[in-house]
C-alpha cells in the first residue's frame, strides 16, 4: 500500500504527518511511502533523513495524487482537493464542522477522509489520540509563553538582592493541556493552583502537587464519557464570580477550558481582568474555539492596563519536532487500525472508524 506525505501548506504550520523514524517502522510494516520534498524541513527533518529511512522523495502532485492514502496534519487545502486521486483516502486532523464547504468538496471527489480530532477518547484509541498528544505540547508551551511574557521569574529565589517570591500560576480547565501546564509550571517552581468543573479532576490536580480551587457546583458537570457539559446559566454566573476573585492575585493564568464540539466557555470576564495585577499574563489556549477570556483575540496579544492576554494558535506547530514525532506515531497507529492486509477496512461497526470517517464513497458522514 502506497502512502503519501505532502508538505503542510497552511499558514505557520510547521509540523509534518510522518517522521523518518515512523517511516522506517511503516516500511517494515510493508507500506510504501512517498514524501514531498521539504515536507519535514520546517520540523527539522531533512529530506535526507526520509530517504535514509526508505521513503522516496516526490513532488506534491505525486504525494497527493498518486498514492492510496495521504497522511497530513491540517485539512486538505481547497485548492488541493482536485489533486487528490479520486477515491483515494486522506487522514488529517481537522474539525469538519468548521468548514462544511470543504467537506462537501472532499465528498464530491469521492475521497475517503478521516479526521483524527473525531477519535473517541477510549482506551483502545489512546495511541492514536492526536488531541491528547498535541494538547500535551500546547500545555507545555503555554507555560513557556506565559513565563516569557510576564515580568517575573517563576521560581522563588533568595538572593543577595533580596527575595523574589515564586510566581502564582492559575490553570483553568485541567484536561490534557491543563494538566501538562500545571506540571510544567510546577517544574519551573511556580505556586500552581487549578480549577475545573469536573469533580474527577480535583484528585488529578493534586496528583501533580498543585492546589485545586474548590467551588461548590450543584449540578453534575460531567458527561457519561467523562467530558465536561456546558453549565447552566446561573452556575456559570457563580463560576465567573468565583474566578473573578481567584484571578486577582495570579501572576499567570492559563485557560484551557473546552467542551467538545462547543464554543469554549467564558471563564474570565473583562471585569475580572480589570481586577488583576498589572504585569499579569493570561494565556488562553481556547482561543481557537472562541477563548475562555472575554477579551481574548485569537492569534494576537492584547494588553488591558498592564494585563496582557494572549490567544496563541496552533501551539504544537511551534515545537514542530516533538509535536510531529507524536503526531506521526498517532497517525501510524491509526493507519495500522484502518488498514487490513493492504486494504482499507471500511467497517463502520468499528467505533474508531465510524467516528473518524468524515467522507466516504461520495457522501458526507460528519459535518
Amino acid at each position, binding site marked *: 500500500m502506497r502512502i503519501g506525505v505532502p508538505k503542510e501548506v497552511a499558514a505557520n504550520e510547521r509540523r509534518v504527518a510522518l517522521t523518518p523514524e515512523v517511516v522506517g517502522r511503516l516500511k517494515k510494516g510493508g507500506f510504501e511511502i512517498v514524501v514531498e520534498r521539504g515536507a519535514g524541513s520546517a520540523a527539522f527533518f531533512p529530506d535526507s533523513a526520509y530517504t535514509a529511512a526508505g521513503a522516496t522523495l516526490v513532488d506534491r502532485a505525486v504525494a497527493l495524487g498518486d498514492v492510496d492514502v495521504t497522511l497530513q496534519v491540517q485539512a486538505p487545502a481547497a485548492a488541493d482537493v482536485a489533486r487528490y486521486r479520486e477515491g483515494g483516502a486522506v487522514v488529517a486532523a481537522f474539525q469538519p464542522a468548521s468548514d462544511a464547504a470543504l467537506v462537501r468538496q472532499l465528498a464530491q471527489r469521492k475521497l475517503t477522509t478521516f479526521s483524527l480530532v473525531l477519535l473517541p477518547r477510549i*482506551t483502545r484509541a489512546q495511541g492514536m489520540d492526536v488531541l491528547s498528544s498535541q494538547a500535551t505540547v500546547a500545555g507545555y508551551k503555554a507555560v513557556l509563553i506565559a513565563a516569557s511574557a510576564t515580568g517575573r521569574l517563576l521560581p522563588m529565589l533568595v538572593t543577595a538582592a533580596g527575595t523574589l517570591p515564586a510566581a502564582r500560576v492559575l490553570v483553568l480547565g485541567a484536561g490534557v493541556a491543563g494538566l501538562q501546564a500545571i*506540571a510544567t509550571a510546577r517544574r519551573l517552581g511556580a505556586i500552581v493552583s487549578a480549577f475545573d468543573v469536573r469533580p474527577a479532576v480535583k484528585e*488529578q490536580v493534586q496528583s501533580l502537587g498543585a492546589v485545586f480551587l474548590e467551588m461548590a457546583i450543584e449540578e453534575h458537570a460531567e458527561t457519561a464519557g467523562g467530558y465536561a457539559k456546558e453549565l447552566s446559566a446561573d452556575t456559570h454566573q457563580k463560576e465567573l464570580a468565583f474566578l473573578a476573585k481567584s484571578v486577582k492575585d495570579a501572576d499567570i493564568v492559563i485557560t484551557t477550558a473546552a467542551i467538545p464540539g462547543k464554543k469554549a466557555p467564558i471563564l474570565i470576564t473583562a471585569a475580572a481582568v480589570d481586577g488583576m495585577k498589572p504585569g499579569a499574563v493570561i494565556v488562553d489556549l481556547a482561543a481557537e474555539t472562541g477563548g475562555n477570556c472575554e477579551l481574548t483575540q485569537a492569534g494576537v496579544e492584547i494588553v488591558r492596563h498592564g494585563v496582557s492576554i494572549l490567544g496563541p494558535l496552533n501551539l504544537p506547530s511551534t515545537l514542530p519536532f516533538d509535536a510531529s514525532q507524536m503526531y506521526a506515531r498517532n497517525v501510524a497507529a491509526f493507519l495500522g487500525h484502518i488498514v487490513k492486509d493492504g486494504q482499507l477496512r471500511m467497517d463502520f461497526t468499528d467505533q474508531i472508524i465510524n467516528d473518524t470517517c468524515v467522507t466516504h464513497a461520495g457522501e458526507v458522514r460528519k459535518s
Partner: protein
Amino acid sequence: MRAVSELSAILATALFIFALNWMNDPKTARRGVVAGIVGMTIAVVATWIQPEIIHHGWILLAIAAGFVVGIPLSLVPLTAVPQRTALSHAFGGLAAGLVGAAEYFLWLGEHGTGAAVEMTHFRMGALCAEVILGFLTFTGSLMAAGKLQEVKWIPQRPVTYPGQNVVNIGVLAVAAGLAVAMVLHPDAPWARTVFFVIAGLALLFGILLIIPIGGADMPTVISILNAYAGLSAVAMGFVLNSKLLVTAGALDGSSGLILSIIMCRAMNRSFTNVLFGAFGKAQPAVAAGEQKVWKQETVEGAAQLLEQARTVVIIPGYGMAVAQAQHKVAELYDALTKRGVIVKFAIHPVAGRMPGHMNVLLAEANIPYTALVEMDEINPEMPQTDVALVVGANDVVNPAARYAKSTPIYGMPIIDADKAKTVLAVKRSKNPGFAGIDNELYVLDNTWMLFGDAKAVLSDLVKQFGSGGIH
C-alpha cells in the same frame, strides 16, 4: 568433677546465648553457629567425663550413627529444608520422650532397692511433661514433615471433621489427667501401665494436632513444635536437675514461641488458631492456598523479599501520583540500589492521568532517566524479574487487556507484571482503577498485596531498611 560440670554448664549456656545474640545479624551469624557448636561440645564432653559414665563404646556408636544420619540430612535441597527441620524436631521430641521413659523405668527399677533418686511430685510432674511433650512433638513433627514432603499416604489438605476440637482436647485432657494421677501416686501398681497410656496418648495427640493444618500454616506449626521440643528439654532438665538443660531448653522454647507468633502476624493468622490446629472456624490463610483470594504481605515481609531480590521492577501508576509518593519511591530506589539490587522503573505510556505523568513526578524525585524503561523494553525482562513492585498502578498491569474483549482496555498493551516471579502491589483498597474493571493480577498465586496509601506504605517499607532489623 561436680565443679567442672557446673562450670562447663555455665560456659555452655553463655555460649548458647551468645550464639543466639550473634544470629541477630547476618554479619555475625556464622560466628553464632560456631559458638553453638563449641557450647554443645563442651556440654557433651563435660557430661561424658563424669565418673558414672562407663559405657563409652555405646556412646561412641550412637554419636557416630548421629553423624552418619545427620550429615546427609543437612545436605537436603533448600526446598526441602522445612521438612528437614520438622524431621529433626521429631528426633528431638523422640529423644526427650525416650530419656523420660528411661528415667521413669530407672526409678521404678531402683525404687524397690531404695537406691532411687527421690521422686518428688514436682519431679514426677516434670517427667510426665517431658514424656508428653516429647512424644507429641515426635509424631506431630513426623506428620508435618510428611505433609510437606507430600508423602502419599498423608493427606496434604487440612482434614477437618465436626467435633474435632472436642476429640483433640479430649485426648490431651485424658493424658494430662492420668499424668496428675501418676504425680500423686508415682508408685501405684497401675502407674507403669498408665505411663504407657500417657505416652500413647501423646503420640496420638501429635498426629491429631497436625491433621487439620494446611500447607500455608506449616512453617508456623513447625516453629511451634520447635518450642515444644525446647520445653520438653526443660522438663528433662527439671527431672535430671540439670540447669544446662533447663536454660538451653528455655532459650529454645521461648524463642520458638516468639518466632511462631511473629510468623503468624506476618501471615496475619490468629496464633491461637495455629497453636491448637484447626480449632474454631475455617481459616482464611489456608483457603488462600487453594482458591483465588487477596493475600496480604507485611512490610517486613515485603522488605525481606525486595532486599533478597536480584532484580526489582517498580511499576508506578496513578496511585503513586495521588499519594505523592514519588519521593518515598525514590528513597526505596536508593535503599535497594545501595544494597546491590538492580532496580528499574517500568513506565507505561498511559500510566497516570496525563501524558508523561510519571515522568514529571519521578524527575522531581531525581530518579535518573536511565532507570526509566519503556514498556516494550521491560516486558521481555519481566520473566527474569524477581519482584515486580506495583505502586498504585492498575489498568496498565491488568492482564485482562490481553484477552477480555468485553473490557474497555482490551487491546491496550500492558506491562507484564504478572510474569514476574513475585508481585507486590500497593493500593488502598480492592477498588478497580480508571477503567473500572477488576484486575486478576492482584489475586495471582505469586501476588501479595500491601494495602494502604502508597506514601504511607512505602515509607514504612523504607524504614525497614533503615532500621537495624534488616542489614
